[in-house]
């Protein structure tokens, strides 16, 4: 399939802004919706709308089948061992909060330690801080080197008999460096410590197999892989999910309810209280199919071109410089000497280019890098080399306007 055909799958990509072709380079924030995803949502809303898991009527049965088929699709997509290990949430943030609460309730006590890293998104910091303050536990932070790589020796030194869980990004949404998650899992497991992987970016760029990674939890959002917003996944190993208490109470998550006491359903229903995202979750099926097609047709020409152009420009400092050839994904955060990231983003916007400026929900990492914010261009497999070239040319023009 060529790029033109692929781009036709995403109606938003042919939008115009200020009369110019939209060049959408904010994919790390959210990707565009595939038409097949929109079609699925329309079908669920117009032909298959009924509450799931409840009624015996035909429409409810059909809706339940669609919803559960999405669970099977996700299980296959990430290589989980069992469908009960796939919990639907509203997104990565909700998935991490679920673990921080439920795992924390069961396994974390006063004086225990939780480990995160300096490069985490706020979503993989704040829920753990909340857990620590609830349980009087302590948050320990793994250092990041100047080039954006995690200091694994530091991680090893932080692991202690008090460590209850390690939470780490598969890929930082700022740095775009693929972390050696499998190695991190091995290091932690050797000390008997489980690992949660924030896969918000990793799910887009890495062929994820949770059994191969051997991680204990893997959290991601549907909207970054072309699915409807408000869809999210928590993968958790059965042995943990079985032990964890529910996060929210309500309908569907129970076995029996009396005023003397309630018993809970098993995973995943235990963690899916209330009416679920009935129209949204099934869009994961066409979204996963879309992600597969895009992955098959992806080449590294955009990555190489942009990396080379940014690295050789002396006005630019790139954060997240790859040491090896397969470590970097096309997420580029950088600063420009003498030009404010906000000014650059504003000018690029008028040129039709959507980029992000600011702290990218990673304030501690900005502090670590010694910057108040950065400019970020993040590419998806549907972005073309022509778009990358236009971006580099426009960036040069914007810089010249400002300095």
């Amino acid at each position, binding site marked *: 399939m060529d790029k033109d055909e692929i781009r036709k799958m995403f109606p938003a990509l042919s939008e115009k802004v*200020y009369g110019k072709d939209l060049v959408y380079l904010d994919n790390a924030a959210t990707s565009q919706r595939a038409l097949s995803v929109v079609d699925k949502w329309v079908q669920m809303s117009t032909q298959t709308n009924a509450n799931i898991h409840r009624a015996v009527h035909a429409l409810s049965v059909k809706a339940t089948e669609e919803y559960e088929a999405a669970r099977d699709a996700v299980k296959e997509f990430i290589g989980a061992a069992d469908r009960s290990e796939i919990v639907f949430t509203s997104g990565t943030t909700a998935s991490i909060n679920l673990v921080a609460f439920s795992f924390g309730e069961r396994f974390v006590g006063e004086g225990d330690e939780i480990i995160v890293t300096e490069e985490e998104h706020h979503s993989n910091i704040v829920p753990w801080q909340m857990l620590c303050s609830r349980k009087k536990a302590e948050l320990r932070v793994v250092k990041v080197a100047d080039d954006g790589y995690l200091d694994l020796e530091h991680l090893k030194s932080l692991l202690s008999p008090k460590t209850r869980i390690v939470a780490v990004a598969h890929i930082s949404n700022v740095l775009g460096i693929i972390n050696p998650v499998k190695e991190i899992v091995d290091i932690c497991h050797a000390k008997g410590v489980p690992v949660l992987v924030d896969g918000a970016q990793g799910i887009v760029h890495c062929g994820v197999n949770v059994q191969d990674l051997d991680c204990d939890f893997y959290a991601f959002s549907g909207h970054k892989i072309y699915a409807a917003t408000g869809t999210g996944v928590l993968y958790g190993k059965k042995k943990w999910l079985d032990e964890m208490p529910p996060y929210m109470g309500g309908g569907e998550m129970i076995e029996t309810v009396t005023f003397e006491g309630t018993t809970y359903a098993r995973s995943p229903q235990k963690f899916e209280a209330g009416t679920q995202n009935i129209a949204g979750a099934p869009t994961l099926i066409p979204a996963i199919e879309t992600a597969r097609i895009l992955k098959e047709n992806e080449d590294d020409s955009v990555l190489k071109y942009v990396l080379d152009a940014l690295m050789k420009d002396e006005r630019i400092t790139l954060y997240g410089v790859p040491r090896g050839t397969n470590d970097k994904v096309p997420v580029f955060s950088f600063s420009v000497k003498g030009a*404010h990231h906000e000014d650059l983003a*504003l000018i690029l916007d008028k040129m039709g280019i959507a980029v992000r400026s600011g702290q990218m929900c990673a304030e501690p990492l900005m502090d670590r890098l010694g910057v108040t914010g950065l400019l970020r261009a993040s590419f998806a497999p549907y972005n073309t080399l022509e778009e990358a070239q236009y971006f580099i040319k426009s960036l040069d023009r914007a810089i010249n306007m400002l300095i």
Partner: protein
Amino acid sequence: MDLQEAKEKIVEDFSMFDEWLDKYEYLIGLGKELEEYPEEARTEDRLIKGCQSRVWLDSEKRDGRLYFKADSDAIITKGIISLLVSVYSGRTPDEIAGDDFSFLDEIGLKENLSPTRAGGLTSMIETLKRTAEEAK
């Protein structure tokens, strides 16, 4: 140049540009023209709240008129505050407090700023008006 003439000049300058990129270039030019901001006035209480980038505004009353100095770490924002300073510096508190700032709508500044930036512009206007009220 009286206040009305100063505003008309800005509207006329802006009408020369069709493209917003050119308008930005004009704002950047204004930002670069801004008189150097005194280091000792770079204080927390002179920061305009509600702006995404940092904007400082310093005022001084002389012979019944208000004189402004301003700065920002982002150059387009600096251009916007520079535009306001060029129009309103040297006016009486009554003139500033009684002005409706509608020439900014005429040049389409608000619509062409992202919501967060437009909020910043509103904060700048409010700060000017408040300063004028207090100086009456």
